[in-house]
């Protein structure tokens, strides 16, 4: 009965006032997924948002006026959104490493021009109206793991009296977890001087394909065991995960891959793509450091006959003679060099070129100078000519050569860089063995926050009971009746002026006497270029810092002679490797047309 009368119910609406809802949008919910907003100050242009978008709705657009800094991991580009494709899933927001990207509560856009649906959002949103945030990153929605996996290492007690390697390396499980944190943005690749394919090898580690990882590593780095341990890891400074959390342990992951694959297999992997046809050209390289070895590796792979002349008894340069074994075991250097030698590189050690550069010019098609900075600088403050005042670089070399060093009971090291900490910690180990206690003081010009040494070195030195005096400038070595009594330092108020120029200012009234019977200077290094001889020195062009003038490919003013590595770029392994590649390429081109 009710259903029969139901249509009549409609008649009751006749004559009623119609209800019209307003066209203006209603306020959206607090977590609404409206149009994107992007804080350009926070955004680093990594492009992770674009990579994760399954709809290809995000494209990275280069912005001309934005600053670019690959070293800090900043690219001059910002995400543009295509709302014809976007499904508002907000994965881009959840994966954004900086948290710059969010969705607003704005959701109305009417336009006949389709181009207006493709926008470059900034913090004011689609229409510049400054709508409040809707869906934004929260700890629940964050797709990133900001915590780094700890790397196992020896405790201070376990390591302080020996030169056993401190860092033990990842196990399979932690390596996998660490690799899984990587978002493959590639900022590390851009920041690395030799542009290592870190995203690729990290991905391979994550997939459990360690040989693939090694292959990716060898695309740009023939000293991977070394760099897996002592690289200055600019990649990690640029890592986008590091913006809010701890950067991926890229260096330790490289080491993990190298440690897990057998040495013989690594040699096979490295030999892939080697040109087996001999070019008939001969290249001489002076110095078996990272630049010389890298150049040799590249040139040998291209079929050239490469001979390295090394003055010391083993190859490796500053990697072997400047870095203590507890940071870089010698057998790992040997493994890297063995791979390079397996390419056919002939390394002749204990060969002092002396003044025979002319014979290299005649006997070889090209020559590369790739010597390190093996000379130690002195502050030359009064008293530094005392026989118990040493150069850190000399001592480190003598330690590697197992030469006898008269270690004293009270030692002061001048310097705040890695070399200062390396020699101080090495001498502390010897002191502990000899005397059962450590009395090593490090005096650095810099304050604690601006020390040049890596924070890890500083932390570990502290754990090993070395004393650190920061903001101290050496005034004089105190010598009494021919006996070294110690070092006087004054407080350094500031090192640089307002324009960032070195202009140290001291407070002479704040003086400390550091008692010592041995002082070690670790303030800087210098090249030893006497072997070039007067005639070649005169022929070459030099810059005002005393370095040979080179072109982009590393060629000097003499067309047969190249220079690379510390002698032209300053001390750093990964830069030396990058330079090695660069000069090898230049030499190869030169030989190809010769």
């Amino acid at each position, binding site marked *: 009965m009710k259903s029969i009368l139901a249509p009549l119910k409609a008649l009751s609406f006749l004559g009623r006032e119609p209800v019209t809802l307003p066209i203006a949008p209603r306020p959206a919910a607090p977590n609404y997924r409206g149009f994107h907003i992007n804080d350009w100050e926070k955004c680093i242009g990594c492009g992770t948002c674009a990579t994760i978008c399954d709809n290809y709705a995000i494209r990275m657009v280069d912005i001309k006026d934005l600053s670019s800094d690959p070293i800090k991991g900043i690219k001059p580009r910002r995400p543009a959104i295509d709302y014809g494709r976007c499904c508002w899933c907000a994965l881009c927001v959840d994966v954004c490493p900086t948290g710059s990207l969010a969705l607003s509560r704005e959701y109305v856009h009417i336009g006949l021009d389709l181009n207006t649906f493709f926008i470059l959002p900034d913090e004011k949103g689609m229409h510049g109206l400054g709508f409040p945030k809707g869906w934004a990153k929260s700890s629940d929605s964050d797709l990133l793991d900001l915590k780094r996996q700890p790397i196992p290492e020896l405790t201070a007690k376990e390591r302080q009296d020996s030169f056993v390697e401190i860092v033990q390396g990842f196990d399979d499980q932690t390596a996998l977890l660490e690799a899984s944190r990587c978002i493959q943005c590639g900022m590390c690749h851009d920041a690395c001087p030799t542009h290592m394919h870190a995203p690729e090898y990290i991905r391979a580690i994550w997939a459990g394909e360690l040989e693939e990882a090694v292959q990716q590593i060898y695309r740009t780095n023939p000293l991977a065991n070394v760099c897996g341990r002592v690289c200055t890891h600019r990649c990690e400074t640029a890592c986008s995960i590091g913006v809010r959390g701890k950067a991926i342990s890229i260096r330790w992951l490289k080491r993990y891959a190298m440690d897990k694959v057998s040495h013989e297999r690594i040699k096979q992997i490295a030999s892939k793509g080697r040109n087996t046809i001999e070019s008939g050209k001969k290249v001489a390289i002076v110095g078996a450091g990272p630049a010389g070895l890298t150049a040799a590796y590249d040139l040998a792979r291209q079929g050239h006959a490469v001979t390295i002349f090394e003055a010391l008894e083993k190859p490796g340069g500053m990697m072997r003679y400047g870095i203590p074994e507890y940071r870089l075991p010698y057998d790992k250097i040997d493994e890297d060099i063995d791979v390079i030698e397996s390419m056919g590189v002939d390394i002749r050690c204990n060969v002092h070129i002396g003044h025979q550069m002319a014979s290299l010019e005649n006997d070889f098609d090209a020559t590369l100078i790739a010597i390190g*900075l093996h000379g130690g*600088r*002195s502050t*030359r403050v009064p008293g530094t000519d005392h026989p118990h005042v040493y150069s850190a670089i000399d001592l480190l070399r003598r330690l590697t050569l197992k030469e006898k060093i008269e270690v004293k009971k009270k030692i002061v090291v001048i310097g705040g860089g890695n070399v200062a900490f390396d020699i101080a910690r090495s001498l502390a180990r010897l002191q502990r063995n000899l005397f059962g206690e450590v009395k090593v003081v490090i005096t650095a010009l810099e304050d604690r926050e601006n020390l040049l040494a890596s924070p890890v070195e500083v932390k570990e030195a502290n754990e090993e009971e070395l004393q650190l005096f920061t903001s101290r400038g050496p005034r004089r070595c105190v010598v009494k009746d021919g006996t070294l009594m110690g070092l006087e330092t004054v407080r350094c108020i500031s090192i640089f*002026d307002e*324009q960032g*120029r*070195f*202009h*140290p200012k001291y407070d002479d009234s704040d003086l400390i006497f550091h008692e010592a019977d041995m002082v070690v200077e670790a*303030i*800087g*290094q*210098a*090249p030893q*270029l006497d072997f070039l001889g*007067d005639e070649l*020195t*005169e022929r*070459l062009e*030099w*810059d*005002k*810092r*005393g*370095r040979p003038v080179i072109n982009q490919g590393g060629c000097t003013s003499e067309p047969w002679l190249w220079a690379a590595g*510390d*002698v*032209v*770029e*300053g*001390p750093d392994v990964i830069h030396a490797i990058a330079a090695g590649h660069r000069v090898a390429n230049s030499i190869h081109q030169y030989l190809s047309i010769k």
Partner: protein
Amino acid sequence: MQEKGEDYKSLKEMVTIGEILKKASAFEQSAFNFYSTLKVSKRLRPLVQDLAKEEQSHLDLFQTLSKHPDLENHIADLVKVPASDHRFSDYILLPKQDDFRDEQAILQYALGREQVAMQQYDSLAKETPPGPIQDLFRFLANEELEHKKELEKWYYEIVHSGGV
């Protein structure tokens, strides 16, 4: 007699602006001569040439200043000899060339010169009443300070940073 002796002593401690400018020119000239004739390997020559060029620009500045009308009227004015004067004068005498075996030694010498010159002009500015002469000394002190800072930058790059 006592009073006359004090007058004589204080007069001895005074020097004319003309004499100061002459000594300053000699100071810069000696530096230019030193860097120009320093026998170093070709590797160090660009550094030494740069230093010589800088001293030449200082020398030119003094030539220009000595002819400036504002200063010509004050050329006979007396100024108290500053405490740093003897060290300033010492630098007019050239050191032995053998002492300059590397870039560090050359830069340390150059820095020493700039420091002494800066102190000299600064002291002279303090001993001079406000006016064009004081402005001149302040300007010169600032010039030397700027040059010293530039040298310190080189020093840091060459000595502390391995040349980079």
